């Protein structure tokens, strides 16, 4: 039996934002990165910021983010996205500048750049994709890797005595006066993705209003790195990541910090 859909405007239930390119994404099926890209592209389009936005892509699986959204991009050295974005925003304050970084990029090698951009209150958005692992280099332990979690460099599971503890950089930056908004979201379900998109929009609005730095963490799955099927990975994330990386707003400052 064949089933044919007539493609007409009335039948249209979903459209890809034209801001997403037609390039086939290199992400593993089931990876959160692709969904987050889509949300970012939609927010930029809905806010009409496509000719004003500069994205800063990291070193990590999302290094090629620049292949997927039709805006100008700067590819930054591993960990340095926040420094790159600082200058881009300071020198072109009329622009919308955001970084898109993994947990290794932002909270290991780039800790200093990230914390200090937050502390200076740069008017940028930081999108932090925390999948508790180094996806790109083949699944090594990240600072965010949960205790007991097996990775290529913690094959017996992360042990606090050897590797220290997983850390929550969102909570750390929320203590800094330059940061106006910190939230932790996820995209494993349509409902979660809708919430995450709202948070992104809030962050982009903050940056354009000059309220300081907005930090949006996306707790994400890396099914390849975790060596699970996409469905199992999402289940594992809900059962193991969410209890530790609790979803929801961490800081919402309504007024900009006094100059």
């Amino acid at each position, binding site marked *: 039996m064949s089933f044919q859909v007539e493609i007409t405007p009335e039948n249209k239930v979903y459209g890809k934002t034209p801001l997403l390119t037609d390039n086939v994404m290199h992400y593993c099926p089931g990876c959160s990165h692709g969904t987050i890209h889509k949300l970012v592209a939609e927010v930029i389009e809905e806010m009409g910021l496509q000719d004003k936005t500069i994205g800063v892509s990291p070193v990590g699986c999302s290094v090629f983010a620049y292949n997927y959204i039709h805006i100008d991009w*700067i590819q930054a050295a591993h960990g340095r996205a926040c420094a790159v*974005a600082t200058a*881009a925003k*300071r*020198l072109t304050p009329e622009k919308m500048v955001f970084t898109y970084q993994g947990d290794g990029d932002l909270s290991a090698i780039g800790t200093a750049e990230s914390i200090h951009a937050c502390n200076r209150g740069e008017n940028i958005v930081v999108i932090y994709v925390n999948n508790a692992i180094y996806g790109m280099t083949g699944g090594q332990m990240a600072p965010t890797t949960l205790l007991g979690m097996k990775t290529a460099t913690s094959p017996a599971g992360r042990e606090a005595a050897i590797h220290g503890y997983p850390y929550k950089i969102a909570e750390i930056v929320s203590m800094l006066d330059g940061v106006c908004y910190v939230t932790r979201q996820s995209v494993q379900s349509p409902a979660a993705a809708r919430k995450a998109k709202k948070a992104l929009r809030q962050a982009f609005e903050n940056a354009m209003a000059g309220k300081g730095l907005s930090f949006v963490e996306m707790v994400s799955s890396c099914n390849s790195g975790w060596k699970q099927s996409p469905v199992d990975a999402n289940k594992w994330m809900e059962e193991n990541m969410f209890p530790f990386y609790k979803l929801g707003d961490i800081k919402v400052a309504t007024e900009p910090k006094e100059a």
Partner: protein
Amino acid sequence: MEEIKLIKGNEAVAEGAIRSGCDGYFGYPITPQSEVLETLMELRPWESTGMVVVQAESEVSSINMVYGGAACGKRVMTSSSSPGVSLMAEGLSYLAGAELPCLVVNVQRGGPGLGTIQPSQADYFQAVKGTAHGDFKMIVLAPNSVQEMYDHVFDGFDLAFKYRIPVMMLSDGIIGQMMEKVVMTRQRPRWTKEEVSQISDSWATLGKHAGREKNVITSLELDSQIMEKRNEHLQAKYRKIEAAEVRFEESQMEDAEYVVVAFGSSARIASEAVSMARAAGMKVGLLRPITLWPFPTKRIEELAGRVKGFLVPELNAGQMVEDVRLAVNGKVPVWHYGRMGGMIYSPEDIFNELKNNAR
């Protein structure tokens, strides 16, 4: 009316930045160059020209801020001293790989390690050959006066944008810290938004508009065939620069039998030594490379065909001397004379070296 000031070399860099239309300076304190950032913070150019000045949390951050600013088509710069420049290595490689224009000033101190805050020329290799990973070059300018530290800011930005390449001003603690008269004849405003767009819209991240595809600043290319092409493109650009941008200065070369080759502060000391040698009846000339890369290889090759030898005094263990030897190619003797660790030779020391070797 001409603007003239009596200032330190480091202050001249700050004054030069503001007057050369620089859009952004990003730096981190380190002796002996901290006056650059201090002077800029004192002068508050964001209130006059609109130039942005940021004290970064490290030199790693400074150079990556430079990368971000340069990506936006702006005239941006940083300054530091030796250990700080080492921290910038990866960033400089990215800047070169992504073909971004910028100016980096190194006011050298002695090493290795934390070394000393006293002056040195021990970062010649780093500036000219071994800056960081990958095959790349920076144009390297070597000022020998406070005036040149001012002027090289202008020249640095011009060359950086002409070739879309990082330019390094390789100064040292002597010139950075000494005070001299600076004539600020050269002055120009910052580029307007329209000018930036005219100059850089074909490659910079000025915001994607309907008139063009998105611009992406990146040094990444996973396809080796394309990556080799990118390398070949860089190398072709470097050959062009070697053909067009060599700068040097000579004195008393017409009848010279021996040539002293020295750069930066060493050239100041050497020029005194050459006068002493002339007074003693020795036929000695001075060649001062102003660009360390591209190096005046051709000129030295020519001279090697007619003189009896070269003396290369440097405040290091022997670095530029290797490039002189490559140019001379064994035709005549080449001697190195150096002091290290912040020690400085006197004109008499160099004169004695000449007397002992030139016979």
